[in-house]
């Protein structure tokens, strides 16, 4: 990890010195234990703030979906992308929100991001003093001792089934050790859910989402949600109420997920942002799998992609129609 971090700092330093970018977006140490926080570096002296570790969770592409305040005159932005982040960025480029030539991508082949909440829960409130990492383990040092964890045991769900840990598009690639993912398709979680009865599935949907407080963190953390006027905040017309009643909450989530169809890369940013720990992925992932199975498409893999719903084939299956043609 230290090797990766110094390689990163070196590369960013060079980019800034050579004026290839005016701003670099990466991660710095967070103010809470086992957290990092997005970091915006414009000055060469600040590059030492950049870190790389198993807690670099945020999808930084989210900052490219609108104009950044404080953007320097040299408008090119450098950005650190894990596999999923790069797919989000590619999607933004394909959907013409970002120009490829405006970004310089430092890619990292990601071994997975650790679920901080789960790790902290396991540590039961011990005061953390330091964290060390190697290829397999994380060693957390606290007041009165230390404990070793296998990284693989504490990854986020979206990381466990990651099919593309190495960025799809990059200008510079930093490799993080050996990494051989074994993604399962379709996602086992979806398979399990499919097996349940219709009423059970609705009950679970209702139960999970009834915790929602309409904070919109899921939407704002998602790089794909860049509409200047979101349907949820449209007043002409007003589609649904502003309340946290079930009907309004369901409306918001169902439509947002449907608007992600063919675009969601399963980065997990929405799940991580949710303050109520709603298992959003249980409902977002189904369309990711359906899109791959039905149309053979996975968003964010190539700059030559066309958006799924902006294309068609005359041979698209239509077995779901009310009547066979």
């Amino acid at each position, binding site marked *: 990890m230290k090797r990766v971090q110094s390689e990163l700092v070196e590369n960013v330093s060079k980019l800034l010195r050579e004026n290839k970018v005016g701003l670099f977006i990466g991660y710095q140490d*967070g*103010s*809470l*234990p086992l*957290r*990092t*926080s*997005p970091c*915006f570096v414009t000055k060469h002296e600040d590059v030492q703030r950049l870190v790389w570790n198993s807690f670099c969770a*945020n999808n930084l592409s*989210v*900052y490219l979906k*609108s*104009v*950044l*305040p*404080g953007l320097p005159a040299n408008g090119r932005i450098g950005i650190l992308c894990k596999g999923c982040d790069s797919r989000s960025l590619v999607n933004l480029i394909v959907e013409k929100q970002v120009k490829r030539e405006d970004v310089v991508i430092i890619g990292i082949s990601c071994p997975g991001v650790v679920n901080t909440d789960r790790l902290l829960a396991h540590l039961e*409130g011990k*005061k953390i003093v330091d964290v060390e990492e190697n290829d397999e383990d994380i060693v957390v040092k606290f007041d009165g001792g230390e404990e070793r964890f296998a990284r693989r045991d504490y990854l986020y769900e979206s990381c466990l089934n990651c099919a593309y840990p190495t960025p799809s598009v990059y200008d510079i690639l930093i490799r993080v050790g050996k990494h051989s993912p074994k993604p399962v398709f379709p996602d086992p979680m979806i398979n399990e859910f499919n097996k349940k009865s219709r009423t059970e599935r609705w009950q679970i949907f209702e139960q999970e989402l*009834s*915790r*929602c*407080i*309409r*904070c*919109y*963190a899921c*939407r*704002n*953390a998602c790089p794909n949600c860049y509409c*200047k*006027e979101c349907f949820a*905040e449209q*007043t002409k017309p*007003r589609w649904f*109420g*502003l*309340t*946290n*009643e079930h009907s309004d909450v369901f409306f918001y989530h169902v439509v947002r997920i449907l608007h992600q169809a063919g675009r969601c890369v399963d980065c997990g940013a929405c799940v*991580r*942002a949710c*303050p*109520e720990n709603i298992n959003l992925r249980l409902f977002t992932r189904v369309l990711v799998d359906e899109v791959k199975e039905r149309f053979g498409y996975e968003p964010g893999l190539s700059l030559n992609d066309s958006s799924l719903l902006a294309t068609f084939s005359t041979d698209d299956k239509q077995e779901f129609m009310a009547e066979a043609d």
Partner: protein
Amino acid sequence: MARDCVVHNKDFDRFLALLIEKHSVFGPSDNDGSNGFTRIETPEQIKLHRGVAHFSFKNFFFPQTEVLFSFDLASKKIDAANKETEDGKYDILIGLRPCDALAVDLLDQVFVVPDTKDVYYAERRSKTRIISFACNEPCATCFCESVGCAPDSEVGADVIIYVLKDRYIIRTVSQAGEELINGTGMHFDAASEKDRAEKEQMMTDAKSQLTRAFSVDELDDKLANFDASYWKQICQKCIGCGICTYFCPTCHCFDITDDTEGSQGRRIRTWDSCMYPLFTLHASGHNPRPTKKERMRQRIMHKFSYSMQQYGRRLCVGCGRCVVHCPVNLDLRAVIREITEAK
């Protein structure tokens, strides 16, 4: 007027049971859903978490969704939401930490002002009594002392309870609190010097765990500079999600919409957030707060500067929820520190 009583652990549930019997008690429990509190039927239901509860208790007086009234044009009827009060029976909100109790007091400034009293809030507030618990173990994210609160602050509470090793000290803070305690009919021993000394030691220990997050000494001067350059950098991490405003116990902005169907409808008040673009969107399409820079600035100014000018108090109680839940770890403590240290 304040009285210190002692209740031993074995008698505490009986005390709670008496309150539950005589009044409607609400407090934090295992499964509060998105309210932050549950109607308490048995003493065991109350679950006091270390530090602050997940949700603030503002939902109690200022619900996220409140039907102001419903109407039916066809029958020309308007039904205002109205709750009957039984004499002598109150709603008791138990389990607040001093920061949350202070937050209620701060919200009172906004909603229970003589000339412009919000009847929905005021009605509920007048028949509620607040029992808070002093903090023995502040969280690492707590910074109440930096904003003038404390683990044993009594502001906003009618009764404050100190949790010692094998007993509780119940202190009545207000006349209403005194009446509440007397009303249980239970006999209380007065707290002894030993009890008080142990309580003081616990509070001293608790306060020693708090680190000073920032100093507000020069904050007013610094915030007077509306066009300071640091706002551009401070806001960069923010994704404008609104979690901070929803979890903040003093954030109180709201929206009012009419929800109609045919000739019937209801007028609803819902929470709003200054972090959303719709918040200041004008009918013309112009938005005076077009980017997150203006919105973050607004949030900080409202909490720390405008409120000083309006009420002589800052609208932050140092509960730390915004720090805990921010998806990008935008730490308010660091922001205020940066502002106070800016040239």
